[in-house]
C-alpha cells in the first residue's frame, strides 16, 4: 500500500509504458537494461564469430572459410567483444546500479545518458553494416598500418572500423563523464569517500580511465582516416611518418582499455564475495587503493605490446618494470577476496559465488602468464603466437566474463523482480568453467609449439592437430553453458518466483528498494553511517523526501555533506534526434560526401541547440 509520499513521487518520476516513453526516457534503470540487452546481443554475435573460427580451426587444412572471411571474423570478434559487448555491458550495469548504490534517484545527466545509449546502438549497427555489404573490417582489432593504410586496404572495410570507433567513442566519453559526476556529487549524505561501496570505487576509476584513454584512440583513428582518404603521411616512412606512431597511439588507449574492462569486474567480485561470505570485505582501504593504482599504472605499460618492434632496450625496461609492478595491486585484491572467504562464515555456494571463485582461479592463471610476458625476452619468443591468445582470453573471459555472469545472476532478482533457477545456474557455471579451460588451456601449449595467431589454418607438421580439436570441442561446451544461462534467464523472467527486496541479505543500498525498484528509487533520501549500510544501520531513511518536483540531492565531493536540491530534466526525444544527427554525419563521412556531412552537422547542431534551450537552467 503506497504511502502519500510514494504516490506523490510516483506521480513526479513515473513514466507511461508504451513506445513514446521508450524513445524519450532518461530513467537510468531503463537505459541500463537497454545497454545490457543490446550488449548481450553483441556478445551472441561475437560468440558466433568465435564458433565459426573454432569450426574452421578444428582440423588442419580445413576449407569451411576462406582466408578473407577468416580475417573478417577475427577482426569483428575482437572488435565486438571489446567495444560492443563487455564495456557497454559494464557501463549499462553501472548505469543501473550506481545511482541506487550511492542512494540517489538518477544519474547526474539523464538526457546525456539516453544519448550515450543511442550512440552505442548506432555505432554497433554502423560497425556491423560491413557484413551487409560484404566489406566487414578485416585488419584485426588493432589495425596496424601500413596494412590498414590506403595501399594495402583499399576497400571500405577499415573506414567502417575507424569511423565506427570514433562514433562509438562519443558514447563512451559522455557516459564516463556522467558516471564521474554522479559519483562525485550525488552520493547519499554520510557516504564519504571512505564509505563508498567498492563497486562504486571501481566504476569511478574506470570512468576516469575512459576519459583519459579514449582520446588517443580517437586521434589515431582520425589520422588513419586522413592517411587513407586524404593523402596525409602520418604512418608512411617514406614521407617522414612512422607506423610505430599508430602502435604507440593505439596501445596508449589499448592497454588502459583492458583495465577499463577488468576493473568493473573487480568491483563486482568485491561486492559478491562479501555477500556470500557473509562478512564485510577484508582490507577495504587496500582494495580501494589497489583499484586506483591499477588504473593509474595501466597508463604506463603500453609499450609492452611493442616489445618485438625493435625499440631500444633501455626504453623497454621502463615498461617491463611497470608491467611487473602492476601485478602487485591485483595480487592484493586477490588476497583480500580469499581472506574474506576464509574469515567469513561458511559461504553460500550460490551461482554468483561460484562464478566469483571461478574468476579468481582463471584470472590468477591469466595473471601469471601476463607476468611472464612482462619479461622482454620471453615476450619476444611467444608474442603473436597462440600463447598470447591463451593469455588474453584467460584475463578477458576469465577476468571479465566470469564476474559479469556473477553480477548478472546476483542482480537478476533486483533488476527483474524474479529469482532464477539455482540448478540451471550451477549447471551453466560448470559447463562454462570446464569448457573455458578445455578451450583455452591447450592454446598455451599450441603457442609454445609454434602456432601463430590470426591464421585461418595450420600445417599438420606443427603437431597441434589434437590440441586444436580439443579447443574447438571446449568452445562447443562453453557455448552450451551460455545457452543454458540464456534459458535460465528467459524461463525465470516468464515464470520465476517473485523476488523480495533483499534475497541475498546483502549490504549495499540498492537492496533497500523493492525488486524491481520504483521509478523514483528511494522514498526518502538515505543517510549512510558506514560501509555496509544494510548490515550496520537499522534505520536508513531520513526526513528529506524532495517531493516538490523532479529533484535529487547534491552533496559535497569528499564527505557527501548535503548541498542543495538539484532539478532533473523531463523526458525528451532530443537525445535520440541528436544521436541520429551524429549517425548521419558518420554515414556521410563513410560515403565520402562532404555536402551530406555538412548538412548533417548543421542538423545535429540544431538538435543540440534545441536540447540546451529546452533545459533552461537544468543541467541534463
Amino acid at each position, binding site marked *: 500500500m503506497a504511502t502519500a509520499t510514494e504516490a506523490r513521487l510516483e506521480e513526479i518520476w513515473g513514466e507511461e509504458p508504451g513506445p513514446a516513453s521508450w524513445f524519450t526516457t532518461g530513467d537510468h534503470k531503463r537505459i541500463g537494461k537497454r545497454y545490457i540487452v543490446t550488449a548481450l546481443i553483441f556478445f551472441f554475435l561475437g560468440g558466433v564469430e568465435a564458433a565459426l573460427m573454432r569450426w574452421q580451426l578444428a582440423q588442419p587444412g580445413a576449407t569451411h572459410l576462406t582466408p578473407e572471411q577468416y580475417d573478417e571474423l577475427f577482426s569483428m570478434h575482437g572488435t565486438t567483444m571489446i567495444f560492443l559487448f563487455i564495456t557497454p555491458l559494464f557501463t549499462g550495469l553501472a548505469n543501473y546500479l550506481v545511482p541506487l548504490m550511492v542512494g540517489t534517484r538518477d544519474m547526474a545527466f539523464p538526457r546525456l545518458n539516453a544519448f550515450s545509449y543511442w550512440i552505442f546502438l548506432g555505432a554497433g549497427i554502423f560497425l556491423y553494416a560491413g557484413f551487409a555489404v560484404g566489406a566487414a573490417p578485416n585488419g584485426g582489432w588493432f589495425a596496424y598500418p601500413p596494412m590498414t593504410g590506403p595501399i594495402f586496404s583499399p576497400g571500405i572495410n577499415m573506414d567502417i572500423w575507424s569511423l565506427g570507433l570514433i562514433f562509438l567513442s562519443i558514447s563512451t566519453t559522455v557516459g564516463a563523464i556522467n558516471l564521474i*559526476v554522479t559519483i562525485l556529487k550525488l552520493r547519499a549524505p554520510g557516504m564519504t569517500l571512505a564509505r563508498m561501496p567498492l563497486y562504486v570505487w571501481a566504476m569511478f576509476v574506470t570512468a576516469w580511465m575512459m576519459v*583519459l584513454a579514449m*582520446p*588517443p584512440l*580517437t586521434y589515431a583513428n582520425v589520422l588513419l582516416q586522413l592517411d587513407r582518404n586524404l593523402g596525409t603521411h602520418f604512418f608512411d616512412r617514406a614521407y*617522414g611518418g612512422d607506423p610505430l*606512431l599508430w602502435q604507440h597511439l593505439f596501445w596508449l588507449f589499448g592497454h588502459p582499455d583492458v583495465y577499463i574492462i577488468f576493473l568493473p569486474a573487480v568491483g563486482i567480485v568485491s561486492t559478491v564475495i562479501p555477500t556470500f561470505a557473509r562478512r564485510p570485505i577484508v582490507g577495504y582501504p587496500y582494495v580501494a587503493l589497489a583499484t586506483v593504482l591499477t588504473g593509474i599504472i595501466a597508463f604506463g605499460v603500453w609499450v609492452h605490446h611493442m616489445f618485438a618492434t625493435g625499440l631500444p632496450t633501455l626504453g623497454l625496461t621502463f615498461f617491463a618494470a611497470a608491467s611487473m609492478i602492476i601485478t602487485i595491486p591485483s595480487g592484493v585484491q586477490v588476497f583480500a577476496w580469499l581472506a574474506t572467504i576464509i574469515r567469513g562464515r561458511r559461504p553460500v555456494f550460490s551461482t554468483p559465488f561460484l562464478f566469483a571463485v571461478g574468476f579468481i582461479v582463471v584470472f590468477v592463471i591469466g595473471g601469471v602468464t601476463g607476468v611472464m610476458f612482462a619479461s622482454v625476452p620471453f615476450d619476444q619468443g611467444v608474442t603473436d603466437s597462440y600463447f598470447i591468445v591463451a593469455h588474453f582470453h584467460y584475463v578477458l573471459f576469465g577476468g571479465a566474463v566470469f564476474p559479469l555472469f556473477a553480477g548478472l545472476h546476483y542482480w537478476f532478482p533486483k533488476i527483474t523482480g524474479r529469482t532464477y533457477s539455482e540448478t540451471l545456474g550451477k549447471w551453466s557455471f560448470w559447463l562454462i568453467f570446464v569448457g573455458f579451460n578445455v578451450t583455452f588451456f591447450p592454446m598455451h601449449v599450441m603457442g609454445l609449439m609454434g602456432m601463430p595467431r590470426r591464421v585461418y589454418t595450420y600445417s599438420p607438421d606443427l603437431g597441434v592437430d589434437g590440441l586444436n580439436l580439443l579447443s574447438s570441442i571446449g568452445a562447443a561446451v562453453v557455448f552450451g553453458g551460455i545457452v543454458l544461462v540464456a534459458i535460465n534467464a528467459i524461463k525465470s523472467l516468464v515464470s520465476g518466483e517473485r523476488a523480495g527486496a533483499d534475497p541475498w541479505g546483502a549490504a549495499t543500498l540498492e537492496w533497500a528498494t523493492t525488486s524491481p525498484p520504483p521509478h523514483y528509487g528511494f522514498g526518502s533520501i538515505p543517510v549512510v553511517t558506514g560501509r555496509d549500510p544494510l548490515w550496520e544501520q537499522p534505520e536508513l531513511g531520513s526526513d528529506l523526501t524532495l517531493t516538490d518536483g523532479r529533484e535529487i540531492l*547534491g552533496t559535497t565531493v569528499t564527505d557527501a555533506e548535503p548541498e542543495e536540491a*538539484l532539478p532533473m530534466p523531463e523526458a525528451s526525444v532530443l537525445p535520440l534526434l541528436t544521436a541520429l544527427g551524429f549517425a548521419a554525419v558518420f554515414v556521410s563521412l563513410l560515403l565520402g560526401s562532404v555536402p551530406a556531412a555538412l548538412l548533417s552537422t548543421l542538423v545535429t547542431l540544431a538538435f543540440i541547440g534545441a536540447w540546451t534551450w529546452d533545459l533552461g537552467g537544468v543541467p541534463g
Partner: protein
Amino acid sequence: MSVARVEPRGARAPGWWGMALFIVAELTLFGTALASYLFLRFEAPTWPPPGVEQPDIVLGAIATVLLVGSSIPMLLAERGIERGSLMRMRICIAISIVMALGFLAIQGYEYSAASFSWRTDAYGSLFFTILSLHALHVIGAVLIVAWLEVRSLAGHFNREHHAAVQAGALYWHFVDIVWLAIFLVLYISPRF
C-alpha cells in the same frame, strides 16, 4: 526540513563538473596530438624538412594575442552575469567572438599562403591537422558562446541562474590555453 534550492555556483554545479571533465578529455586529445608531433619530429634529421619554411612567428604571435586575449572579455562577461548585468555579459561575449574570428582569419591566411600542404610530407600532415583540429574547436567555442548570447536574449540567464554561461566560458578559456601550447610546440620549438 528543506534543502536550499539556489542553483549551485561555479565549482559545485554538476554542469560545471561535466564541462570540466569534457575539457580533461579534450586536453588529452591535444596532448596526444602534440606528442605525436614531437615523436615524428625527433625521428627526422631536419625539422622542418628541407624545402619547407618555418611557420610565420609574427603572424602566429598576433593570432596568439587575439585568441588568448579574448579570454579577458570572456572573464568580464562572467563577472558581469554574476552581478546580474546582462548587457555587460552580451557585449563582452561579442568582443570575444570578434577576436576569435580575427584569429581564424589569420589562420586561414596562413593555410592559403603556405608553400606546402598536408600531403607534402609528415610535417605538413601534422602542421595542418593539428592547426585545423584546434581551429575546429575555436569554431565550436564561438558557436557555443554565440548560442549563449541568443539564449540570454530569451531571458534564460540572470544573477541566480547562469551555470551554462560559466560552462561555456570555461570551454572558451580551455581553447585559448591549448593554443598557447600549440603555438609553443608548432611555431617556436622548431627554431631550436
